[in-house]
């Protein structure tokens, strides 16, 4: 292990902190995450209400800024109700399992470069090792156990369905998420977060690998169960989803875990694609922008942009249907990300081996790709026309719609005519 760390350049700076500094950093990250959660919740409520022409919370604290803190206190003073049908041990354990990994993933996120804390030089990151992004993926997957166990142990139908949906959704979107990282590792030549940030000293990976970034952003919204992919919490279908039967602080823990996960995926996107703690372009001209404690400003600035996008999506888009959602993940995101990895690998290899510059590579890749896309577009168009013609042929004879054909009565859709309506039409005609 030690040999590995020694071999990897730049990683030797980690794991040298004295114990008091480790404790200080760990407590610091914990406090930051709780604070960021409180701020995110109030920000979400305020921004959504502005988008909907409301004022939002404005009673507690200046401008309603202490609302989420008071909500937490209120939840702590609420009665704890455990359903009779619940599996008690698992019911207790589930919020802990959901919450702890959410905190632990932040251990390897770099906040900034080396700084001096009470005279000890240390990187502004709790720890790092050669496979830290893999560690983030592994630990955040454990959080899924918390959700599925919460749904299972509640002894309630809706909670069980919500938990199952949630786990199916999270594992489905973990694949495009994991695949979108591959191109980054290819260019950075490392799976360690601090080295990936170091590799982006020149150009951010969002410029080089824009499709990877787009795939990641879509996957991260699905992964955090946020709108428009918030199917596990679809109120119209599942009441509250996996946390329907939870009350008091146990419910608050699930909420906390969800918001920390939002912050974590945003931080990961920042680290892998947006240059981590590095200052954005016009500010980076200022020499000391990337030194000392300043990078924390850029880092949290980038995260808050992502959080705003999350809220914006929630305020704008309606929820998807579950089958559409699964179809999108498995039939669109997955093949696209595998194809993109192969394209990136080919481009990289052609540069390494044949010595092609970027323009030549782009030309050789883009021309066949455009032709391929064009052919597939024509193919789809022909197929669509054919199926449209088939539909028109069917529609010529007005099919009678029987609302009671299935188990449940179904109202007719536009274009469908029920028996009574048809006879009424015929009477009118005669």
């Amino acid at each position, binding site marked *: 292990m030690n040999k590995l760390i020694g071999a990897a350049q730049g990683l030797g700076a980690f794991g040298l902190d004295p114990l008091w500094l*480790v404790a200080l950093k760990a407590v610091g990250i914990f406090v930051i995450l709780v604070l960021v959660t409180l701020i995110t919740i109030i920000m979400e409520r305020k921004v959504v209400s502005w988008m909907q022409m409301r004022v939002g919370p404005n009673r507690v604290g200046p401008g309603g800024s202490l609302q989420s803190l008071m909500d937490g206190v209120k939840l702590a003073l609420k009665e704890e109700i455990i359903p009779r049908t619940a599996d008690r041990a698992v019911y207790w354990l589930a919020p802990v399992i959901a919450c702890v990994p959410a905190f632990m993933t932040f251990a390897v996120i770099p906040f900034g470069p080396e700084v001096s804390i009470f005279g000890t030089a240390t990187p502004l990151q709790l720890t790092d090792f050669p496979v830290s992004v893999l560690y983030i993926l592994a630990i955040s997957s454990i959080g899924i156990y918390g959700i599925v166990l919460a749904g299972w142990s509640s002894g309630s139908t809706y909670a069980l369905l919500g938990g199952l949906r949630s786990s199916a959704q999270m594992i489905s979107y973990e694949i495009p998420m994991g695949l979108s990282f591959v191109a980054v590792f290819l260019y950075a030549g490392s799976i360690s977060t601090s080295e990936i940030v170091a590799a982006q000293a020149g150009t951010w990976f969002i410029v080089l690998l824009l499709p990877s970034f787009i795939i990641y952003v879509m996957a991260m919204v699905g992964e955090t169960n946020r709108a428009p992919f918030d199917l596990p919490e679809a109120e119209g279908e599942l009441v509250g989803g996996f946390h329907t039967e939870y009350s008091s602080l146990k419910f608050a823990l699930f909420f906390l875990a969800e918001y920390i996960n939002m912050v974590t995926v945003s931080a990961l996107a920042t680290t892998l694609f947006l240059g981590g703690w590095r200052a954005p372009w016009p500010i980076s001209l200022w020499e000391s922008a990337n030194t000392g404690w300043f990078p924390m400003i850029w880092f949290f600035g980038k995260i808050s942009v992502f959080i705003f996008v999350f809220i914006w999506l929630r305020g704008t888009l309606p929820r998807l249907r579950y089958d559409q959602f699964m179809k999108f993940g498995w039939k669109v995101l997955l093949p696209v990300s595998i194809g993109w990895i192969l394209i990136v690998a080919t481009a990289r290899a052609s540069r390494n081996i044949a010595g092609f510059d970027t323009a030549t590579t782009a030309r050789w890749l883009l021309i066949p790709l455009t032709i391929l896309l064009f052919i597939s577009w024509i193919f789809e168009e022909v197929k669509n026309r054919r199926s449209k013609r088939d539909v028109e042929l069917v529609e010529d004879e007005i099919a009678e719609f029987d609302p009671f054909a299935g188990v449940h009565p179904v109202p007719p859709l536009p274009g469908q005519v029920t028996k009574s309506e048809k006879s009424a039409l015929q009477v009118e005609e005669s």
Partner: protein
Amino acid sequence: MNNVAIPILALGLIAGAFAVFSVAIASITGPKRYNRARVDAYECGIEPTPQPMGGGRIPVKYYLTAMLFIVFDIEIVFLYPWAVSFDSLGIFGLFEMFLFSASVLVVYAYVWRRGGLEWD
């Protein structure tokens, strides 16, 4: 000595202590008013559906999704080290990964054709 695991354990301990404390404190701080209807499952506010004995059945779709997840997760596990050492593998690495992806895509095409990706 470089010990990179201790900071993770420290953060895990703090988070774990906080989570266990929150779960435990909730039963002390809140009021306790017992009645029969209260301890029924809430579901959607009406009389709860009777739960099947032994957990009941779960649609096979979920197991299928889990199996597919494992197939592609294994692919990802192979892709990561390949990506990191791509530059030193040269043209061999590129062709190997094309072959490997092709073999996984055969499975993918099969599952797609057999309706394993349909969700209704």
